């Protein structure tokens, strides 16, 4: 609980309209896309870096947690106030400060919606590739905190590959600038890379300098349909080993795609087991050549059908189906254990078949989809959390899937982050020493442990107010 004094002081910093302790508002800032709820004690809407600095200084003095939050669309609980305290909503800091077409950079505030930023730069013939499925509503600040990826990562990389510099409020309240507004920069340690993906535990990002690319001349979108899931996985590996890097190479199994309403109207053959959504972009002549080669690889390796999207409308529809999958899975079972594994690309068939076998062994409903092109598969185990037996089986299955992934030389999270949902498993991938180094970094930057506590490193007992699944 926060004292009246603290509330008064927060009100003085942010203004009366920009702080709330009403139960209604607290409820609205208690959740994210993990579908778990933890009530904060207050929510504050700062408008600039100085206000955030003052809030954090006070948190250090008074000892309350501060949790930064963008759109609340994360999948690992990064923005959940698991220990209460003050949610710092960055919704008001949503301005694009600069788009510099001469130097191919942009400077944005953290609350800018990723898709809106992309639309703005594309109007100028520029390109910001990171495209998480939530791009129409997630924020760039959240993307930077979690190092979000997306389908285009196979060719263009993830958020960290585009962040050149940051303005950050440290957990002690000081404001620093990291990186530079230039493409190169090796002055001192790379604090930019340290901050990106730190899940709001090492600082609150208040300004982001982003690298832009020229917008590719054209794109071509294809849909390859398979009646054997192994063939689809094999084709995904083969395209890469044939030295073609498509701009996206998405895998969707039957259980995933059938959850989306629009799927029915796509007129796909009834006996499909998996589809690949493949896009190539760049110079017009080049993409024609690449598309022809990809179609050949698909056909030679068991694709029943390869379709080419005719117009923008068709492309939009294909992507709508793809982006709707994750939330639509709730149609299979009410609760989702949402994993985010990555394996080396040659191991995609082993991973997909292996995951299936684990799910079958424990008699669980499993839907897999994701960015096969970069080896990142979203493994979903669908359960009813009130069924304790099912929950127990699911926990065992998750552990076995992670063992499988690590055995194939992969990692347990590609783009969602650890947050609270993968916290218990971090030790499976990282050594004690590596975890210790990370904890020491956290200790140095945040000696009082006020910034987004209870995340990444398992040390606290969680008590979700709707006692949701903790896996």
């Amino acid at each position: 609980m926060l004292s009246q004094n603290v509330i008064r002081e927060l009100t003085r910093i942010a203004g009366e309209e920009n702080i709330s302790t009403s139960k209604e508002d607290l409820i609205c800032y208690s959740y994210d896309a993990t579908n778990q709820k933890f009530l904060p004690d207050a929510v504050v809407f700062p408008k600039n870096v100085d206000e955030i600095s003052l809030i954090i200084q006070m948190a250090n003095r008074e000892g309350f947690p501060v949790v930064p939050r963008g759109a609340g669309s994360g999948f690992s609980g990064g923005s959940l106030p698991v220990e209460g305290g003050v949610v710092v909503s960055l919704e008001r800091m949503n301005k694009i400060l600069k788009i510099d077409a001469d130097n191919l950079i942009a400077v944005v505030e953290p609350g800018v919606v990723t898709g809106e930023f992309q639309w703005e730069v594309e109007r100028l013939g520029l390109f910001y590739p990171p495209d998480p499925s939530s791009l129409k509503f997630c924020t760039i600040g959240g993307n930077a905190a979690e190092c979000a990826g997306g389908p285009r990562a196979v060719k263009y990389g993830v958020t960290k590959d585009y962040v050149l510099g940051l303005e950050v409020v440290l957990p002690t309240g000081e404001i620093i600038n990291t990186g530079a507004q230039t493409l190169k920069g090796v002055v001192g340690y790379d604090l930019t890379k340290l901050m990106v993906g730190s899940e709001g535990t090492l600082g609150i990002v208040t300004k982001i300098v982003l690298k832009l690319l020229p917008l590719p001349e054209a794109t071509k979108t294809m849909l390859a349909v398979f009646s054997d899931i192994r063939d689809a996985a094999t084709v995904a590996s083969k395209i890469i080993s044939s030295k073609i890097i498509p701009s996206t190479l998405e895998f969707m199994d039957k259980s995933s795609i059938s959850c989306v309403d629009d799927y029915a109207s796509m007129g796909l053959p009834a006996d499909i087991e998996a589809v690949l959504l493949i896009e190539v972009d760049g110079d017009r002549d080049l993409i024609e050549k690449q598309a022809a080669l990809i179609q050949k690889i698909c056909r030679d390796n068991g694709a029943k059908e390869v379709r080419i999207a005719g117009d923008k409308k068709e492309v939009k529809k294909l992507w709508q189906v793809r982006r709707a999958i994750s939330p639509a899975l709730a149609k299979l079972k009410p609760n989702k254990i949402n994993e985010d594994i990555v394996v080396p690309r040659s191991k995609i068939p082993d991973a997909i078949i292996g995951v299936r076998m684990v799910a079958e062994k424990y008699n669980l409903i499993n839907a897999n989809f994701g960015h096969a092109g970069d080896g990142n598969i979203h493994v979903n185990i669908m359960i009813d959390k009130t069924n304790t037996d099912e929950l127990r089986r699911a926990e065992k299955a998750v552990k076995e899937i992670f063992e499988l992934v690590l055995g194939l030389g992969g990692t347990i999270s590609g783009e969602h982050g650890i947050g609270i949902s993968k916290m218990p498993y971090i030790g499976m991938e990282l050594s004690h020493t590596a975890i210790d180094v990370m904890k020491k970094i956290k200790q140095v930057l945040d000696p009082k442990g006020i910034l987004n506590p209870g995340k990444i490193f398992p040390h606290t007992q969680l008590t979700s107010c709707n006692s949701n699944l903790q896996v």
Partner: protein
Amino acid sequence: MKDLKQFSDEINKCVLCGTCRGVCPTFGVINREPASARGKAALCGAYLNKEIELSDVFIKQMNECVQCMACKTACPNDVNVPDIILSARAEIAKEKGLPFVKSFILGNILDSARLMPATMKFASKLQGFLFKDVPEESGLHRRFPLPLIDERRLVPPLAERFFLEVRSQKPAPAGNKHGSEARSQENSSQFTVHSSRPRIGFFAGCLINYMLPSIGEASLKVLESAGASVIVPLDQHCCGMPALGSGDIETAKSLALKNLEAFEQYELDYITTACATCSDGLKRRFKELLYDEGEDVRKRVERFSSKVRDITELLINELRITNYELRILNPKSEIRNPKSIVTYHDPCHLRRGQGIADEPRELIEMSGAKLKEMSHPCRCCGLGGSFNITNYDFSMEINRNKAEDIKNTGADIVATACPGCMIQIKDGLHQLGADTKVVHVVELLADNTNRQ
């Protein structure tokens, strides 16, 4: 009508993914989570779990929704947040009562066949005194403070003669009567009667009746030229959607029943209206409202609703209007400036409520105009029924994007299929200083746009 408790499973379908944040127009203006559909669903869930009460904050959140249904359309799990909010409003009205002015208007005036026209007539006579003309505009600005109407609001004048009033002075021609209709002859105005033609009942709706009767007249002309026999029952009422939107279920039910009675007196093939909100209400909401009124009423409302078509879909899909028929209607249409460019705004209750998008566009092209799409044709205009009256600034802020989208097309005319959207868009364009003409699609067909 389902109450909030019965929406419990619907609320639990929400997985809190946040997709609605990308499309919700009230969230787009406020940019804070409680304004989003996700936030509102979470609040309704919390109320049902007894975590919160019907507090002022809760009531404010439930009122800040324009019922555009963009969230429902975008939702990967089809969560019907607009209806969850409507049932929350009904819960609020039931537990807390409606604000006095609102309840008086809805319960006493709107619900009465005599009082409503009488009140409006009084207002029509009074308006010259209350409002002043805006130069070169067909709208009005108010002179004095009036309850519910914002000072900057540009309102269309109340018509000197209401649509149904004009119709009542054109009684049905003798002959061609069907059984029970003989009795109710005095209660209807039959525009044309041909026994072999499809028989259409025309529902005017308040905005067309009291403010924009030219849309009603244009509708009758176009329907006739498309080969229909049109009947206008004179004892029709408000469709009740403003009452439903305010949580006043009883008034909405009563109006639905009265309208049912007004139209049941005639043998009709179809019932149509040129207001997207009315057609959505007649088609979809009447059934929900009267669901619990017994087997007999349920059958009657099923029969009624199955005949309802928005005028745009009726003309294209049922009457199959042709260019030839339009040329007969507008013999001089070749003199229309062939360069006139029309852009189209999709009313929420037409596009998302009824899934009608192609038909109005086909009609625009049939009229001879060149259709140029604006960048977000189905973005809400921000009217949201009485939302616009209670939250004027907010409503106009939502409208600003719409007005700019329209202006950016460079079109001479913006056409739509809802008189509510027309009033809102006209106000928005006026505030933006754009002189784009605002018309209803049927006016474009009847070519009487010069009359407004």
